[in-house]
């Protein structure tokens, strides 16, 4: 079923990760903006994020960012360079690399 194919999933993941990042960004900016009156508020926010559940969510965000980057790179290559076969493998590789990087992030913070 073409709707379950690796490339269709890749495109969907790319779109959904973009949406998720778009929703996350304003919150990210608000958090960093806490530093506007000195470091105290930012510091207490950062300590709040030390919780395992938050760290887990952060590794999810790292995954989303990496997968969106790699998926976007794949599109840029398709659109600007000569056609190359093996798109399915590339898409799967992109997902795997993203998962690995997110996992490394998670492992380092614990």
């Amino acid at each position: 079923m073409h709707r379950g194919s690796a490339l269709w999933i890749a495109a969907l993941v790319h779109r959904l990760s973009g949406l998720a990042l778009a929703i996350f960004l304003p919150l990210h900016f608000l958090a960093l903006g806490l530093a506007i009156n000195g470091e105290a508020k930012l510091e207490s926010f950062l300590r709040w994020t030390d919780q395992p559940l938050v760290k887990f969510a952060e590794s999810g965000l790292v995954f989303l960012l990496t997968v969106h980057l790699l998926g976007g790179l794949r599109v840029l290559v398709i659109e600007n360079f000569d056609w190359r076969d093996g798109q399915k493998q590339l898409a799967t590789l992109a997902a795997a690399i993203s998962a690995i990087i997110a996992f490394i992030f998670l492992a380092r913070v614990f």
Partner: protein
Amino acid sequence: MNVRLYVWQRATAALMVPLVLVHIAVIFYATRNGMTAADILSRTHGSIVWASYYGLFVAAASIHAAIGVRNVLTEWSPLTDWRAGSFAVVFGLLLAALGARAVFAVVLS
């Protein structure tokens, strides 16, 4: 308008490839155990480099996200193109404003 949006979307995407890679490195560095807000801010304070880097990143991300959101809305929601576009513009401006404020917060205040 399609070509224009396409060009801006792809151009900001290409620009952000190196910016995001650096950002991922920054994320890994900044989440090293024991890094406090003071540690982070002492590195970003008064830094033209960080201001330029993140200023550029905020601008690119705001444009890119706004166009992306517009695409998704026109395809997945019943909104008209005009409404989707207007929402996207507002969203982009919001991101740019909050982002600029964040850059200001870590570099200047």
